[in-house]
């Protein structure tokens, strides 16, 4: 049975994710062995009194630097993969991607504006950059939605076209800002857009968490309806699905997830496209299993890519760049496999 298989994949990948988190948090200039990492981790469990056999400095590095970074990577990977998986169902298109409605481009524009013109002030530990990137992403999708709406309905084709238009317009404005601004801001914008988890801390995780919980929770609730939508909008309607309402919920949830991720980690491409695709091979198209499995696998992939990004060479490579370099060829391989006839 595929349902049993789906549950098994989710369980196994969840265990793998925990292992990945502990291992990844150990990697870095100061290596922390998995056993030590686990002991440091359990030392914070209330009621558990472990004799401190670990290095106190290592504990600080683990708690203050490594753990927030891997946790943030996991959250971002989870958010992007879930959004991608849901969009692929909503648009009935296996090539759909969480940024296709202009959210990443809008966020890039917001971020560029913040870096170039607003300098640096902070609200509750978070700078202008993530705030403006988040708002930029939301604004872009709102505009796309408005442009695509015809009366009470929002046709999917309209969304895609408006998404492309708004996306490229936003990027052209980003280019304009890049051209006009000074060298320092230009470097900052370009670097930020490559996507990275470098500045991760617990405050950022705390900012991310409510948006991600809301978005992920919403998407997981609509698995059955998304399945019905794969049969076509009219068929879904005949099965009692309020299609326009469903679309709106999926778009709002997907936008929240993507905008929040881009705001704190820049644009990390390919995760949202490749991971749901890959997971579909394992669990089939049923969104009730596909979405949670994609979320967990996405978390593993981003944490893994980020660990590579900060350990391959002496200076850190942005994780977005690593994802793009690894993800592109991997996606092509997946595509070739799919295009070839099954018996070949």
């Amino acid at each position, binding site marked *: 049975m595929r349902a049993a298989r789906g549950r098994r994949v989710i369980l196994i990948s969840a265990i793998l994710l925990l292992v990945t988190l502990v291992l990844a948090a150990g990697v870095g200039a100061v290596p922390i062995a998995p056993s030590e990492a686990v002991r440091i981790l359990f030392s914070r469990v209330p009621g558990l009194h472990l004799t401190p056999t670990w290095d106190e400095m290592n504990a600080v590095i683990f708690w203050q630097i490594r753990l927030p970074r891997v946790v943030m990577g996991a959250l971002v990977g989870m958010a992007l993969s879930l959004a991608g998986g849901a969009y692929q169902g909503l648009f009935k298109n296996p090539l759909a991607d969480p940024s296709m409605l202009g959210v990443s481009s809008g966020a890039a524009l917001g971020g560029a504006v913040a870096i170039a013109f607003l300098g640096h002030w902070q609200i509750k530990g978070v700078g202008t950059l993530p705030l403006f990137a988040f708002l930029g992403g939301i604004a872009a999708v709102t505009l796309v939605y408005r442009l695509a709406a015809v009366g009470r309905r929002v046709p999917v084709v309209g969304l895609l076209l408006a998404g492309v238009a708004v996306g490229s317009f936003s990027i052209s404005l980003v280019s304009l800002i890049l051209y006009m601004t000074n060298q320092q801001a230009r470097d900052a914008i370009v670097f930020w857009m490559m996507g990275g988890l470098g500045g991760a801390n617990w405050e950022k995780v705390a900012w991310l968490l409510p948006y991600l919980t809301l978005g992920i929770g919403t998407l997981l609730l609509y698995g059955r*309806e998304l399945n*019905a939508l794969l049969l076509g909008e*009219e068929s879904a309607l005949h099965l*009692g*699905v*309020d299609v326009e309402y469903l679309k709106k919920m999926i778009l709002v949830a997907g936008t929240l997830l993507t905008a929040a991720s881009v705001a704190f980690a820049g644009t990390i491409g390919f995760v949202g496209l490749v991971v749901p695709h890959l997971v579909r091979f394992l669990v*089939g198209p049923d969104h009730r299993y596909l979405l949670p499995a994609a979320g967990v696998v996405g978390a593993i992939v981003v944490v893994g890519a980020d660990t590579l990004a900060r350990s391959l060479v002496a200076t850190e490579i942005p994780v977005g760049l690593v994802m793009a370099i690894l993800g592109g060829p991997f996606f092509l391989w997946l595509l070739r496999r799919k295009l070839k006839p099954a018996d070949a």
Partner: protein
Amino acid sequence: MYLNVGNLRCGYGARMVLDGFSLSLRKGEFLAVVGPNGCGKSTLVKAISRALRPAAGTVSLAGRDIWRMKPRELARQVAVVAQETGVEFDFTVEELVAMGRLPYLSRFRRETEADDLAVRRALEATNTLGLADRLVTGLSGGERQRVMVARALAQEPELLILDEPTAHLDIAHQVELLDLTRRLNRERGLTVIAVLHDLNLAAQYAGSMLMLKDGRRFAEGSPVQVVTEANVAAVYGSRVRVSSHPEEGSPHVILLSGERCRDERAC
């Protein structure tokens, strides 16, 4: 009356396909809707199944306005098998048929035994139990349509609407699907509305027929009353002879070639 369509004005944008259309249907009837392309058959189906909001007029089911029902509530009473349902993702037959239970499932509840039973019954009734674990994308056209009927039956509807269900099927599968539909109609008292292109199949299987022309009712009644040489000539502009089906006695249309019509002026 089970289904009442009153003074329906319905169409796309400013173009009204149906204007002032009314229709009543008793429970347990098998109505075939026929007419040339663009006559409003599909629009009527969309209006009855709530896929298209009418500009004016009412559609009510057992005395209740369908637009005052929740979508899920309507889906427990009305199931639709469309002409072609593209399934591009790899669902198995059983998974697809189980989607028919969607209107019965609340968000936080899993499928119960009653749901499994309904799915199994639907598979049995449509003779698709043997296909349960096959992927829908790998089925033939005839198998696929039977599976679509199974999905509709899993909804445990009172009204089954078929919109040109035999459009892409070969003759054997056309007969198979309509035999199945008639059996469901007779044995379970399922009310059926079938949009059909083939006048002969419509006349052979349906209890009553509705012939549309330009969004209006041209003829309605038993197949013998509706499928006449005069009606077909007036609605389709085709020259035909109507004889009688050798086994069922239903009217049978024989198409005459148009060229002969021009040559002999014998239309």
